[in-house]
């Protein structure tokens, strides 16, 4: 398996035939029919049995959705037990045996990719794994969806190759494309990149806004890395406060007539601030 595998989706080439969806369902052994949609289902068509979907815009533009396999995935960073794994090669995969089912990954993903088997009594988180196991064993050399695409709207290669290809296409037909590669820098860069003639901001939550280039895990880590310090700080502050007050009270008891000075009322609140 190549390092840094990457999928380049060219929105201008997609005809919306859904061959990729069918191929994905076949290789992952999922039923062809999805069954009735659940109330509040994703409007983009993704579900636990549909890991890639064609998002059809009213203006007849078809955009393929799938897991972006971020370089610094939010889902991997938030999973309390590490059931989602960023493999050394690049794809983000899921280990059912470890998962507790807290669904924090689904909340954390900026693209709303992980889906849940709501109707199962033993549910899994489901999302595209970039055909990781089959690529790794050499059974296939491209993900099934890429293989199935009749229009080469979705192509597969290493990250460098794909970025170069994307830049080549943008330069070759500058009037056709918006000069932006979605996924090159978004949330720290992703392994699935898009070039398009329409704005693709709608692919993420809170559509029509850019996601920014800062990886999401940095935001929680900024708070989490202070945890040991907070713990020690709070413990020593409390001990010191107790010691001071205890000592004062004992002194006051030894010297009768002197009034005990009271500690300010909101001390314990201020203690929480850093």
């Amino acid at each position, binding site marked *: 398996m190549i390092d840094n595998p990457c999928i380049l989706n060219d929105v201008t080439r997609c005809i919306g*035939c859904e061959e990729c969806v069918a191929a994905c369902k076949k290789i992952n052994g999922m039923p062809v029919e999805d069954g009735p949609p*659940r109330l509040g289902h994703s409007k983009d068509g993704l579900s636990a049995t549909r890991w890639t979907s064609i998002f059809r815009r009213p203006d007849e533009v078809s955009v393929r959705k799938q897991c972006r396999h971020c370089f610094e995935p939010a889902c991997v*960073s938030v999973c309390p037990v590490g059931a989602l794994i960023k493999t050394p090669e690049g794809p983000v995969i899921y280990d059912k045996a470890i998962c507790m089912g807290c669904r924090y990954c689904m909340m954390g993903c900026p693209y*709303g990719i992980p889906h849940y088997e*709501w109707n199962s009594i033993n549910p899994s988180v489901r999302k595209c794994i970039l055909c990781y196991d089959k690529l790794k064993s050499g059974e296939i050399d491209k993900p099934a969806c890429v293989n199935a695409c009749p229009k080469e709207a979705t192509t597969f290669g290493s990250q460098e190759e794909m970025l170069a290809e994307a830049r080549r296409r943008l330069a070759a037909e500058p009037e056709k494309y918006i000069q932006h590669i979605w996924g090159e820098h978004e949330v720290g860069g992703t392994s699935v990149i898009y070039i398009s003639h329409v704005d693709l901001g709608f692919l*993420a939550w*809170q559509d029509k806004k850019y996601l920014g280039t800062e990886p999401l895990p940095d935001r*929680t880590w900024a*708070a989490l890395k202070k945890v040991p310090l907070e713990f020690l700080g*709070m413990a020593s502050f409390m001990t010191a406060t107790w010691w001071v007050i205890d000592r004062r009270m004992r002194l006051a008891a030894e010297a009768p007539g002197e009034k005990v000075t009271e500690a300010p009322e909101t001390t314990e609140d201020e203690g929480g601030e850093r």
Partner: protein
Amino acid sequence: MTRRVQITKGILWFITGLAAAVTIIRFTRGLGTTTALSDTTPWGLWVGFDVMGGVALAAGGFVIGAIAHVFKRDKYHHAVRPAILTALLGYAAVAVGLLFDLGLPWNIWHALIFWNPQSPLFEVAWCVMIYLTILFLEFLPVFLERTRFQALYRILLRMQLPLIILGISVSTLHQSSLGTLLLIMPFRLHPLWYTPHLPELFFVSAICLGLSMVIFESSVTAWLYKRKPNTDMLSGLARFAAGALALYLAFRLFDLWHHDKIGLAFEGSFEARLFWFEMGLSTIVPLVLFLIPKVRRSHTGVFIASSMGLMGFLLYRIDASGLAQVWATRTDYFPMWTEFAVSFGIVSFFALIYLFIQEHFPVEHEILDEEEKWRQRQLFVLPRFDRLTQVWLGDPTFASRRVYSLVFVVALVLGLTSTPWQPLVEASPVQRARGGDILKVGFPIGTVAFPHAEHVKRLGKEACGTCHHLHLPGDVGTPCSECHSDLYLPTRLFDHFRHVGLLGENASCERCHPKEGPRIGVTAKKCSSCHEKDMMAENQVVKTFEYLTAPGLSQAAHGICIECHKREATNPEWGKPDLFRCATCHRTPVSHGDVVLEASLEEIEDEVLQ
């Protein structure tokens, strides 16, 4: 035991019974059946209320611990044991709530062995486990006080202060980490709630909520057991609460101002209104009330102010973990009654345990003494009979147990009856697709005539938005399936009563069902054995159909129509039927060249033809 306690316990048992019914369904049918959660809203009431709210509700334990033991305010010593008990039970309730919410609850222990220190939830899980242990050790002396394990009791008492300081530190961590949880969702959470200072805000709000809870709980206990409330202590706590609330208010507003988001609060949007409602309920009104000395000394006053604070801060948690995200997901989520039943049921169940411990262990000595006197008196009350079942009710303790168990069973039965047993699917206005009425196959063949006038009549003139502009402006082609989601489902056609009625006197089961064996649908005759002519003559295409059901649209199109059209396409006499072209049904990109598309479809068609 006062009448109040008995009635309260009855109500609590009822809610617990409802929750027990939902519990059965939850653990046999899965989350999909018992919750309105969906892929767009994977966290709902159970996370917002049970976990986020529950942990904060139990914050009273460490706050009172700090006030009484670290700051040595002796008048609050009375509040320590109830507060620690509340905290202990609160955290236990959180753990139970988690068992409901986790998709794979039997893997809950995985947090112990699979570590991901990057995850805020991992940090919360560990802190909660540690703190639960600390709370247990802090509370153990209450269990031991009147037993013969006096040596252990004294050791634990001596450990009280270090334990409390440890508890405060651990609480600081996970109360703030609950806020850290949400830092990963800048794109889901509305900017009025999202801020890098969520951890600090959550910590301060936990102190507010904890203090409100202690005030609320001691005024409720006083009311329940008809004791004079400790006004001195309550008003003192109210002053602390006022301080904490003022701090929270200043912090929150300063944060908004600092990040230049204060304008958002005056936009008039749903979120802005929600923000002010939440701030009013949680902070502003209780703060004003607590600042008035007369309110602080009034039993009702502190009760009202603290319960407002409680609800407000619970709303804060629910907003942050759900309501303030609707803005991004654009999906409404309203908890099903089953979710409310479980959330309130867990609270009720642990409230019952709380009352039980109050009545049997020296949490508050006055209550225990009263209860023991009451129990002594009950030994001399005559037994009774139940008039309806003519069953002996036993002595009064048994009688009250009979009442509680009856209430519990009634709630359980009502719950089991009204709980949905099937997962929630998109509601369709059409329960049974009646093909002839709605779908009219028009001319040319292969198009479906849409009776627009009928839809307008049925939905009302103002309902244009139901179909047009459904998602975005310019959406002119809302597919039928957007409303008629059962288009894709097989439809039950057979009407048993109609058949029995029409056959009249000739009706006998054996006309359709076998003499031997079960008389059910599967074993009955095929429709075609009577309706050969009706079903076959007009419609040459549909030659195979499932018993009792008509195929859904996609099933019909892919399984029956396309197959036949493919076959017929090879017949040179017919030419190429339109339906064979994928593009006839599946929409095609216009902006990108019909030429390309036509060519590609021609290619595919050629392939099939060869």
